[in-house]
């Protein structure tokens, strides 16, 4: 997958795809710096933190003591074999890592779920109950004349989203593309990146508590259908502001509403996602509009996709009977751990050291990036490489349209999670 050779000397890479958030920007330039890597161009804070993390290559451990990789693998296989109900969680890995973990879960009779699937499920539930009309990054970048940012701090999640998708000067459809209106619905959302940008026209801020965003969208939906809505307070906004927003949506040639399920951390937040998407579906009866969901960090989009094509279901699958058994509630990672139903946790986190395993007293096999700091000493710890830094791989972007090839940027002894998982499976 080294589709491009270094062009400016050894270890200087262009068109590098970044695995450290769900956008997977692939225009980075990375070169060597001392013992490590340096982001030379098109990096954001997340990319710099990820790519420039120093290479450390600790030994695998069993009970906190250094062992050989073979011994760690043999111990992991034995633990899985002896386990009544192993949980394969975290799943912060690339496409091949997910393929391998599903094969292992099948053979080991366990349950698979991603660390961030509580967020993903706010979307999956909507897709599985009513569906949506969505768009993708290039489509939004070239086509949208109205962006609505609903309840997510985009700048924090994806530091280059506004730069690449909203403030871009070139457009496919005009040499002098019209200015864009950007509406923020929510509280404390950072819109500083839009300041002074040529493409940006009006920036409108509508302060609404996250859990009341659905109320605003449901009202717009009803108004769009011609219903009469009494009262002047709609989700904490004056009626006129909601009327104005609806008028802008209807007048837009291509409106895009952006949400991030991980930002909607309140009970039944899937209903907010549903309100957004039902509004979008209905406005499409007369004009064009689309949703765009953001997030997708730690390989969560890839994990959901691969699990779907291999098992038929997007995560929360148990292979204890040999068949893929799907239960959205019962096989949620957090519920299983809270209820102490599993007796072994295999945790996979190969991107950010922040994806630490939950603090649980059941035995754990940790396949983690070397700087990860679990709350308790794992039974088995196998340091693994980061896809796109230490080894090649593929990741699916948050819009699920594009998958990007990841490069190996440095010489590292750290194995890929996929190769470790395959060896564990073979040893079962």
């Amino acid at each position: 997958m080294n589709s491009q050779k270094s062009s400016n000397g050894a270890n200087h890479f262009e068109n590098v795809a970044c695995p450290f958030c769900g956008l997977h920007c692939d225009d980075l330039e990375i070169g060597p710096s001392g013992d490590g890597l340096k982001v030379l161009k098109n990096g954001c804070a997340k990319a710099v933190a990820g790519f420039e993390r120093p290479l450390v290559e600790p030994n695998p451990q069993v009970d906190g003591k250094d062992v050989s990789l073979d011994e760690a693998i043999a111990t992991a296989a034995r633990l899985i074999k002896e386990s009544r109900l192993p949980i394969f969680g975290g799943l912060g890995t690339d496409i091949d890592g997910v393929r391998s973990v599903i094969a292992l879960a099948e053979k080991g009779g366990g349950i698979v779920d991603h660390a961030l699937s509580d967020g993903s499920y706010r979307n999956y539930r909507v897709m599985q109950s009513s569906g949506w009309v969505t768009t993708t990054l290039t489509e939004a970048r070239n086509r949208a004349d109205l962006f609505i940012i609903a309840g997510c701090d985009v700048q924090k999640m994806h530091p280059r989203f506004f730069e690449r998708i909203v403030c871009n000067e070139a457009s496919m459809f005009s040499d002098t593309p019209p200015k864009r209106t950007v509406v923020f619905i929510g509280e404390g959302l950072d819109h500083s990146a839009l300041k002074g940008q040529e493409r940006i026209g009006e920036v409108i801020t509508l302060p609404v508590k996250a859990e009341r965003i659905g109320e605003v969208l449901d009202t717009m939906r009803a108004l769009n259908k011609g219903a009469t809505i009494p009262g002047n307070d709609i989700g904490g906004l004056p009626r006129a502001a909601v009327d104005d927003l609806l008028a802008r949506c209807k007048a837009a040639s291509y409106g895009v509403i952006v949400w991030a399920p991980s930002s909607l951390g309140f009970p039944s937040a899937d209903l907010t996602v549903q309100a957004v998407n039902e509004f979008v579906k209905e406005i499409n009866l007369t004009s064009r509009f689309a949703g765009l969901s953001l997030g997708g960090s730690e390989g969560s989009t890839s994990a959901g996709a691969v699990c779907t094509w291999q098992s038929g279901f997007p995560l929360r699958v148990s292979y204890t009977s040999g068949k893929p058994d799907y239960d959205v509630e019962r096989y949620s990672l957090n519920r299983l751990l809270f209820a102490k139903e599993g007796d072994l946790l295999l945790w996979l986190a190969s991107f950010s050291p922040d994806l630490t395993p939950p603090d649980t007293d059941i035995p754990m096999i940790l396949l983690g990036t070397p700087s990860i700091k679990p709350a308790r000493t794992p039974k088995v710890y196998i340091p693994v490489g980061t896809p796109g830094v230490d080894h090649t791989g593929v990741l699916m972007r948050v819009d699920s349209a594009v998958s990007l090839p990841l490069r190996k940027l440095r010489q590292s002894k750290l194995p890929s999670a996929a190769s470790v998982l395959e060896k564990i499976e073979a040893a079962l």
Partner: protein
Amino acid sequence: MLIKLTGGKVYDPANGVDGEVRDIFIENGRIVSPEPNAKVDQEYALHGRVIMAGGIDPHSHIGGGKMNIARMMLPEDHLGHEVARTELTRAGAGHAVPSTMLTGYRYAEMGYTAAFEPAMLPVNARQTHMEMADTSIIDKGAFAMLGSDDFFLRQLAGKADFSAIKDYIAWTMHATQAIAVKVVNPGGISAFKFNQRKLDLDEKHVYYGVTPRDIILTLARGLNELGVVHPLHVHGCNLGVPGGYETTLDTIKGSEGLPIHLTHIQFHSYGTEGDLKFSSAAAPIAEAINQHKNVSCDVGQVMFGQTCTASGDSMRQFVTSRSADPKKWVVMDIECDAGCGVVPFKYRDKSFVNALQWAIGLELFLLVNDPWRLFLTTDHPNGGPFTWYPHLIRLLMDKNFRQDMMQKINPDALKYSTLASLDREYTLYEIAIMTRAGPAKSLGLVDRGHLGVGAWADITVYDDNPDREAMFSTPELLFKNGELIVRNGKIIKVVNGGTHVARPNYDPGIERSLKRYFEDYHTVRMENFRLTDDEIIDGGRGSLIIQPTRARAA
């Protein structure tokens, strides 16, 4: 190792063999003609059995973004259809939109050795190939979708040099590891993003000012001159629209003698007669196909029951979403490249419309004379899952069975179709053409789809059961590249299939304008858009089968 298949009745239309009793020899994965006294290492006595090449499905949605949306959206399609892991096979689930490994197993168990994903969005090619890599046993291939992508449309609108257009078509085939090119609702997927709700054959796209006719002719001529064997694969304008048959007739007549393949033509053969303004126009469509030798088609037969429609045609799928069953659906605008629409659907035999759709498909099968230009498909899963093929074959081969089935459907539907008057029964020879030899020839698969010396030994052995549904459901033996994979309908060995691609010539100078274009407008770099050969081979998970093209003309 020399393997001998002794005494079977061989149906090998590519070599004109119609049910002759012949012995077939296999060595090193291929069919051979050994020395008269060569030592046979393994012999299968197949007296009375029917032998055909492995089945080839030229149009089946088996992988890529829209299929994964369908799987994700429809857990109810999978519940009750879960399959456990065995020592040989992986777990999986699904009925209309099965998981990838299961898709491969089901095809192999049905005697098929290849299936082609007809709607690969270029930007989604990597995912499509990853899913196909996880589709066990069978060989795969994919058709790159062009015709609603901005680069092509701006070339056409800007009256670009025709050789540059051909370079772009050929480059796309290389970059996406495709074997053919498909156009879906030509220009319509793009027009929908500009809020056009229909685009007739001669209607102008509001932004680019080009018509679907321009798009079809340019792509068809381009592929022809590039020497790509499979003609432009056309999903026409106005899919599913009553009266849409006129557009189909215009498309056929307007093809100017260029080779084109009209896909799932059943959905494009609807008239407007009767109280419900919905009737069969299969007869005029079949007549036009019979007259125009440059046209081939596949049917996209509708089968009764639950399925899910999944198409690149976002414009038409948005309209179809009103009939979603269950009531949920997804439409996507994708990367200024294409789009998709996924709408679950239940075809009911008591529904006038659905019963008529079923009848129209069968009429087309029975009225088109030349099985070399008509292929057996359900447009999986759009008309129904591919696992219906054995039933469909029986409907075509057994008139009494067909009449029994006609008794079960909405009786009014038959009044607006000629089906009840058609006596034709397909022969095994014709079935072998429609399901093997014809698709292989049309797709340009060298050494596949036939049983002559030198062919790869993809071979299916059936019991000659008069119940053709039972016969085609459970082949006795399936060989893939000479290895025994299935015995009595059960998988006994699992292999990784290959990926068929075609690589017409192009001027690499096209990459200069493409590189700039990607950098200016896209969110992916050209270098990352392209799939390398290594990504397909992937350490042995897959392999490439490069099919030849004719010499490029200009």
